[in-house]
């Protein structure tokens, strides 16, 4: 298998007046797993279909493995795709489904079947050759779909929300298997999802999309800890959005005043004055009322087993916090002091062009 790079150069896709992808450029390095993450209708699936060749761009160039494939149709691209619905052919058995791509590209049937069995073994699905797709469980169908895509040894493998039809437990297992497979076979994988946790779990890099454009691109940790704008901050996990006042101290750090509290945070080259601040729920710790200058009143407490979710009234606004369940949780209508773990608090640049998309 020869993993290939993918490059988008100023790609635009329009359907009539509707712009589905607006001047997008990015590169996917060979052998990496990149996730396209975003709310529905943000253009992430269109980008996946552009890579597959199921759509051709209105403008711009697409390169796979360094070769310009802008006008090449899906059947001629060395790209396979696992569909959200799996799209298994209902009139063919498991083996016929998996060998299909080999047979239509001229491989002898016997060879094709041998390789199809190998692929089925790779995804851990031996002995189901003659079943029809309708006789398999959801997870098994998913594996067949993966095997069918893998058997062609594509230089790029695409996943379109592959886990959305599975239940929560199976979803975690399958996403780990996909990641394992990708690492083991050193595949270039592009993965589309709207689930931020799933994206964080499987990706080398994440491209966050919003309104037909790339909002931010980076490693999962970068995006979580240094979101480029309020949209990304809100989309990459929960975030409380408050306003603080920034005063720079040196090249990297500044003082951010949040009500009565001042935190020392990276200023990210923002100018002095009011700034948006994102506070992760798990960065807020509830302590004794006397131990902190910031007082909060517990408005709501929801017990979730291992965790407790609090809604707090504070001088800097209403905050949402998550803590490990303690022996004595803070009761509703009692006061508590607040502490902030600086790693979970970040100043956020204003959204370009004043967009304000809710996550």
């Amino acid at each position, binding site marked *: 298998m020869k993993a290939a790079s993918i490059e988008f150069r100023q790609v635009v896709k329009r359907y009539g007046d509707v712009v589905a992808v607006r001047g997008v450029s990015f590169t996917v390095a060979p052998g990496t797993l990149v996730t396209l993450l975003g709310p529905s209708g943000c253009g992430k699936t269109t980008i996946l279909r552009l890579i597959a060749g199921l759509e*051709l761009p209105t403008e711009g160039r697409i390169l796979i493995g360094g070769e310009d494939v802008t006008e090449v149709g*899906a*059947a001629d691209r060395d790209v396979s795709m696992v569909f*959200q*619905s799996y*799209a*298994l052919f209902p009139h063919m058995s498991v083996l016929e489904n998996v060998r299909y791509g080999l047979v*239509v590209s001229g491989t002898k049937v016997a060879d094709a079947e041998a390789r199809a069995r190998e692929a089925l073994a790779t995804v851990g699905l031996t002995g189901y050759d003659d079943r029809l797709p309708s006789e398999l469980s959801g997870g098994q169908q*998913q594996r067949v779909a993966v095997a069918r895509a893998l058997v062609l040894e594509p230089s790029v493998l695409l996943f379109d929300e592959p886990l959305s039809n599975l239940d929560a437990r199976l979803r975690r297992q399958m996403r780990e298997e996909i990641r394992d497979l990708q690492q083991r076979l050193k595949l270039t994988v592009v993965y589309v999802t709207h689930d931020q946790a799933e994206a964080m779990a499987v990706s080398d890099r994440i491209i966050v999309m919003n309104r037909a454009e790339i909002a931010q691109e980076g490693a999962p940790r970068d995006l979580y800890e240094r979101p480029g704008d309020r949209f990304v901050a809100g989309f990459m996990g929960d975030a409380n959005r408050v306003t603080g006042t920034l005063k720079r101290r040196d090249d990297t750090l500044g003082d951010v005043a949040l009500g009565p509290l001042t935190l020392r945070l990276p200023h990210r080259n923002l100018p002095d004055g009011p700034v948006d601040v994102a506070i992760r729920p798990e960065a807020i710790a509830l302590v004794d009322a006397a131990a902190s200058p910031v007082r909060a009143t517990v408005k709501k407490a929801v017990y979730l087993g291992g965790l407790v979710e609090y809604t707090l009234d504070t001088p800097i606004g209403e905050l949402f916090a998550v803590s490990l369940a303690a022996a004595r949780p803070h009761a509703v209508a009692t006061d508590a002091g607040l502490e902030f773990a600086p790693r979970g608090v970040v100043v956020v640049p204003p959204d370009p062009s004043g967009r304000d998309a809710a996550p």
Partner: protein
Amino acid sequence: MSDTVSDTVGGVRDRALRVWLAVGAAGFLLAPWYALPDSILSTGWLTLWLSKENAPAWWQAWAWQRPWLWLVGGLLLACALAAGGLRDRRQRANALAATGAAGFAGTLAQGFAIGPRGWTADWLGALFGPLAGGQYGMGAGAALVLAAFAMIFALGLAARGAFRGDAFVACSVVAVTALVGLFTFYPVTTILASAFEDAGSTFSPSAFAGRMFTSKIWGLGCLGGGTRCGVAWNTLILALSCAVACTALGLAFALIATRTTFRFKRLLRVMSVLPIITPPFVIGLGLILLFGRSGVVNHLLEAAFGITPTRWIYGYPGVLLAQVFAFTPIAFLVLIGVVEGVAPSMEEAAQTLRANRWTTFTTVSLPLMRPGLANAFLISFIESIADFGNPIVLGGNFGVLSTEIFFSVVGAQLDQGRAATLGILLLGFALAAFFVQRAALGRRAYTSMSGKGDSGLPAPLPDALRRVCYAVVMPWVALTVVIYAMALAGGFVETWGRNFTPTLRHYVKAFGLEWGPSGLIWAGAAWNSFWTTVRLSAIAAPLTAALGILAAWLITRQRFVGRSAFEFGTMLSFAVPGTVIGVSYILAFNVPPIEITGTAVILVACNVFRNMPVGVRAGMAAMAQVDASLDEASTTLGARGFTTLRSVLLPLLRPAVVAALVYSFVRAMTTVSAVIFLVSADYEWATTYIINRVVNGDYGVAIAYSSVLIVLMIVVIALIQKLVGERRLGRRTAGEVRGGAAQFGSAA
């Protein structure tokens, strides 16, 4: 268009390109360029290959003073140079598309510009100088070259990235467009043009006005009680009364079938199939045998009461009666779906709100059925104005547009301009009704069923209404049975009305077989037209189904510029009445460059393109059931359009394919209105043969022949139903056709 390893050079599928270039070369260098008097399949032309009639294009240009054909050769050469000479992908694609388009247009243009006596228009001669010779209709060579140019154009488009780069899709779209253009748009434009031409073939709106606004068309004499009304009014009055009667009867039938405990509901369903398998004039024949001057009823009346037989059945009453018999089942089919679609819970809600049965029916059920009623009305209206078989058999002096068109062409008048004018009028009526129907259905509102189950029970009909329905439907059913019985029995007696001695004479005359010295002799008079009809219908049916399914696939599964125009084009012939198609085919295809009247080709083409819309509809409905991600999965696995269609979609669509096949075969076998203009001594159609027998008063053979056709249709349908039915009982159910997602539901 093979699916083996991609042999792309510069982005164009080279193997397909080479094949089409070879086809073009063969068309230019080998095949006879002009149409031969005999079939190309009879190999006589090979012996005189380079003669003036049989020579291929290059020899015609070189030796027979037709130098304009060098233009065609030059354009072919340009295609080859573009294919072989250019390395840059984009340049090559553009060059192929451009030379292909130029070649197609150029070849057609020389055909239209140069006729048997040189230039077809004076300004062309003034522009290019006089010509030494002329040319006749295009033949096999020209067809091959045109096909090659069109496909090279399509391959160039695909290489430019159109149609998502799929060569098969590109070629299909271009091919279907070219064929629909040739066999639907070109004839219809020709009829428009010739309506505006005077006797000398020059453009003349006054000639059109003179023909259009005469009292023979628009006269209102019948209102004054004197002479007859114009044919336009006749047609409209007939169509309106027929539509009203069919809709009312259809509703009565539908209500009885769904809202009563009527015990013979299956019989109603069977009756609804009858008009599809019956040649359209059979009911007319049955009516003549029953109510005609020497019909059974008149005989009884004369014997019992001494009433002198009259000819009342010939004219408006008879035609109307026959049409209502013929088209009520169609209205019933439309309405039964609508009546079943009215949600029982609505009616139950009305009843819980203190409405009695009658109020419920008039305030809830009937208004909910309104779109269906409008649809049934318009369909009956369209069927009535397009009907040819019943008016020709029963019309007498009551002329309608479709028969007047026929008599303008075949009668002593032979006035093509008048035929074209009447054709335009009829086409206008049909298109108007068609668009009103589309618009009415566009707002199709309330009857659509929701996904939720409705456990309610349909409200029983109010007693009075139920009695009315029974009172109308029962005699009607009885009469239908009697008419069909008459039509079948008539073939077994000597002379209907005069001599009721049983005989097989008519069957022997029509379908006699004899043993001669050299074996079996098809001695019967009907065999010739019978086998022609069966053979040509059997050729047309698979072509119709293939084109229809292909077009449906392109419309539902591909996105390309002009797709809605493409859809309109494939559907257009559905709205054009058969007589108009017949006349327009004569006008368009009786003169070079495309001269195919009197051949089998024109009969096959006529049937294919008239019935194609039904194939398209069937295909579209079936494809809506198959999730599009199945196609895309196949494509990303390396299958091109053709492989996807063949190995993924067609297996899932088999019932729709079979239905399209059956329907197009049956329709071709029973059609009258268009083919009656197109038959020739060599190629006679069963139905036109029967009509000629009826017109000559030879009812015995006509009835015998009709009976044979009906029985044959029933056998064919039953056979196919059995085959399709068995497949449905297989291990898969319809619900599985949606990929794995079916069980889980898919989040968009």
